[in-house]
């Protein structure tokens, strides 16, 4: 039998993107907003989520999807607050994908939730390439990591709707040029918002919380 050439011209991640679209439709039907939070390990994803829950739990019915390579330490911190949390262990995999997210959503009662935070696996590289069906993508960069990261890992910052600069409480000890940082982000991604915060001292969290309320005003408890 002879050989022939088959034209494909299809993105390898097309199946993931399609699944992500199905997830967004599912969330929209249930009037749920979902935020995908990405960062390197140790930049404060869990701390930011915990502080955000404290400030929004009166107004939103929140759930958390926790991506971790192994362990359930972060999930335990969330469930102690009586907030539903689903753990996805990627067994070594460095990012979440839409299929894993869909499975996690199956474990949640979508009629009793209107805001979901996904804590992605700590990784500043490949998490950006996988659409999880979230409505917004947030990247956390902490002060000790340095202000050069957007230029070293530009794809992540190009994808972000919001960049949270966390751990501003330690700013005096590092060379991070916080005043110049918003211009670095807007050079890469003009539509991204930048909010300096400290999950520890709670400094700056108000602007982040206001952004969530403005973005997901149609899903809060008062409106539903």
């Amino acid at each position, binding site marked *: 039998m002879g050989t022939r050439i*088959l034209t494909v011209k299809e993105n390898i991640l097309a*199946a993931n993107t399609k699944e992500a679209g199905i997830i967004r439709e599912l969330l929209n039907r249930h009037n749920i907003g979902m935020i995908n939070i990405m960062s390197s390990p140790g930049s404060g994803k869990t701390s930011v989520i915990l502080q955000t829950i404290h400030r929004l739990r009166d107004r939103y019915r929140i759930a958390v999807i926790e991506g971790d390579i192994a362990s359930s330490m972060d999930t335990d911190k969330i469930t102690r607050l009586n907030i539903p949390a689903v753990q996805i262990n990627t067994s070594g995999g460095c990012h979440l994908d839409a299929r894993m997210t869909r499975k996690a959503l199956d474990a949640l009662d979508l009629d009793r939730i209107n805001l979901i935070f996904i804590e992605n696996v700590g990784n500043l590289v490949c998490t950006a390439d996988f659409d999880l069906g979230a409505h917004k993508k947030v990247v956390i960069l902490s002060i000790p990591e340095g202000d050069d990261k957007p230029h070293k890992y530009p794809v992540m910052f190009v994808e972000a709707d919001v960049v949270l600069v966390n751990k501003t409480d330690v700013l005096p000890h590092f060379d991070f040029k916080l005043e110049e940082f918003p211009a670095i982000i807007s050079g*890469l991604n003009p539509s991204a918002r930048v909010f300096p915060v400290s999950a520890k001292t709670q400094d700056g969290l108000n602007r982040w919380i206001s952004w969530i309320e403005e973005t997901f005003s149609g899903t809060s408890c008062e409106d539903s």
Partner: protein
Amino acid sequence: MHEQSIVESLLNLALENARKSNARKIVSINLVVGDYTGIVDDAVNFYFGFLSQDTIAAGANINFTHVPGQLRCRDCDILFPMQKQIFRCPKCSGSRLEIVGGRELYIENMVVE
């Protein structure tokens, strides 16, 4: 580990296309990879060899076409290739840059029997 899930998706896409056209065997896959994807050829070959066993893609060659990262300066409006560790416009030294190329990751075509 990153390449493992990429290769799973690549293999599924290749097998699905082969099935649709009633192919008996996949001889080679021409893959287009942008430099901003960070995909490493050797790692793709390694996982492909492993994951494609017992499929009609077993033994298939993967030919990589790399697309260089390309940037556009938002101030000078010039296009230039990405350089490792340097994120500056060669003309104005500014860093208000848009990524315009290098994020490709698709199968161009395949040779099948």
